[in-house]
């Protein structure tokens, strides 16, 4: 890996399963030591992209390199430089914590003199001191995920691919997991992590938003947040929410209306409806609504708009 070259580079990376395009001409560049977030709804193509980058799937088109090696032509060289945590938990449930670590340590040929120390580090990182001899299948989700991370970094890979490492893990454990990711990044490890939790986007240095196989937006969280939504964002409590979205979409002055938790987020452009007119407008359509409150957009607002914008574009063509 030459200095200054990106750790991960993808150009026009495409994967088709028969006629279905799961990943569609994706371009990607991740610098060394960066935490790159892969964010997108279910079926967006996150796992498929990560698998291509790990050399587990042949790209149908385009090319990608990891640590300077071509993922399709030099997959073994790529595998020497990466750690991978698949989306589905994939340690051996019928082996103990210690036995799993011993196995992956052996497979990765971790130098014997540092093996004990790294194993102890992995165990303490996972918070599994005293449970070294527990069968892995008896562990709760958060511990399992941290142990899987421990196994994936035993050999100190310069690049880590983590596919939805925090899915199905309770919030406290998720936060601990992200602390670990930051500690690793501080040691110059490049990390590509996928998630469908929008709030986790804030923990990343750089975000790639993908939807239906396409890269919709990328940038740092603040860059993305600073993107103009095309108007001002207002939050409004109303019921029923679904009907409100329907009524507002396409109404004069409304750029965007989307459900956000138990409230409605509405982007208003210039001309047409103003914020003060919203409750009345909704009321006329039989929807009870409180006053509209101006809010600063979160990343999630940006994503929602980008994703639905993409859909509109597609249905128009």
């Amino acid at each position: 890996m030459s200095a200054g070259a990106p750790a991960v580079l993808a150009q026009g990376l495409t994967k088709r399963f028969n006629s279905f395009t799961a990943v569609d001409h994706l371009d990607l560049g991740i610098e060394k030591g960066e935490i790159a977030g892969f964010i997108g709804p279910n079926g967006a193509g996150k796992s498929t992209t990560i698998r291509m980058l790990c050399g587990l799937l042949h790209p149908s088109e385009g090319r990608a390199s990891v640590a300077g090696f071509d993922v399709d032509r030099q997959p073994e060289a790529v595998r020497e430089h990466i750690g991978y945590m698949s989306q589905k938990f994939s340690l051996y449930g019928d082996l103990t914590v210690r036995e799993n670590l011993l196995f992956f340590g052996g497979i990765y040929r971790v130098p014997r003199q540092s093996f004990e120390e790294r194993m102890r580090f992995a165990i303490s990182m996972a918070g599994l001191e005293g449970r070294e001899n527990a069968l892995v299948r008896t562990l709760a989700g958060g511990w399992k995920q941290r142990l899987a991370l421990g196994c994936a970094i035993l050999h100190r890979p310069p690049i880590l691919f983590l596919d939805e490492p925090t899915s199905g893990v309770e919030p406290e454990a998720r936060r601990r997991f992200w602390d670990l990711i930051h500690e690793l990044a501080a040691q110059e490890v490049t990390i590509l992590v996928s998630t469908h939790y929008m709030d986790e986007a804030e923990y990343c240095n750089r975000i790639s938003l993908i939807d239906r196989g396409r890269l919709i937006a990328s940038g740092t969280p603040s860059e993305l947040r600073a993107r103009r939504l095309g108007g001002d964002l207002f939050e409004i409590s109303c019921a029923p929410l679904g009907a409100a979205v329907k009524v507002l979409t396409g109404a004069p002055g409304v750029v965007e209306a989307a459900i956000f938790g138990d409230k409605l987020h509405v982007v208003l452009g210039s001309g047409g409806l103003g914020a003060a007119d919203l409750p009345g407008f909704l009321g006329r359509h039989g929807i009870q609504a409180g006053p509209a409150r101006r809010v600063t957009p979160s990343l999630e607002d940006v994503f929602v708009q980008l994703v639905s914008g993409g859909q509109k574009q597609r249905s128009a063509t």
Partner: protein
Amino acid sequence: MNLRRTFAMAYKEALQIWRDPRSLAIALLMPLMQLVLLGYGVSLDIKHVPLCVFDQENSQQSRAVVDRFVSSDWFSISHTINRQSGIGYALDRGDCIAALVIPADFSRRLSTVGAAPVQAVFDATDVNTTNVALGYAQGAVAQANAQIAAQWAASQGVLPSLVGQVDLEPSTWFNETLESRNFIIPGVVAVILSLVGAELTSLTISREWERGTMEQLISTPVTPLEVMLGKLTPYFAIGFFDAGFCLVSAVYWFRVPFRGNIGTLLATTALFIVVVLGIGYLISARIRSQLGASQIALLVTMLPATLLSGFTFPLDQMPALVRAISLAVYARYYVTILRSVFLKGSGLYDLWAPLLGLSIYAVAVIWLAARALHKRLD
């Protein structure tokens, strides 16, 4: 190939076998069960086959033939019947396995034509017993022939010694007592090892695909060769243990005489186990579901091993096409080797032909198996 990775693989696999009741059952209980089932089912020597006699003449000469059938312990008369239709009835009811029919003109034809037919009818439901009984019947008829010839010679005033003693004792080399188990037990051992070996390894890869651990494994730098060697090592130990168990049982339990050399036996057995494990591994690598792999393994090993290895049905009595197909059945080579080592005491040099067959198989199977795992998801 890296020894450390291979060892890590082998150790992990051994732990998993140790903690998996199903694998342990296949490894330890299946050989015992199969040995009892197959060993006793097909090989206990058949004696006192129940025989129905329909003697339509009931002369001194016809009774002499019947005597030949019962004088040895081969047959016991369960019934004497006096109607042709009684035969079918007795066979159907299972009163007898064989029926002997002597025509009413038996002694007249014997004295005029010089030969007389007797008819023997067999219940062929249990092919193996029938084969044995058929052999016995031929033996009995041969003895009766000899006796009649001697009597004829005497009546003509010729000394029996000049007519020549017509010795039609079934000629069985190497298995002098005609004990079928000496012949069958080595075949049983081969069938058990084929089955257990392929069943054990048929799960090893498919299990990892099903549990999702394979995706993690193929993302590491481990090579397909290391995976194969590592995974097969513990199974080889189990296979060797099972082989030892079967072979010791053959000698000390079924009392098959062992005339060969232990070294020859172990070397050929090791080669056979390599083939068997390799086949199971190949199946496992190709089929990603455990159930499918286990069933295919059963199909490709059990059926040909039982039918075409010469274990139950002698190969030289089969049609040419079937014999040609049987060349592909690796179990037949081991059956041949085992029988020769046990009964003839053959050494490696005598066994070059089946050894060559088995070696070709071993090389081909391992060559394919070492390449069978694709480190890709598509």
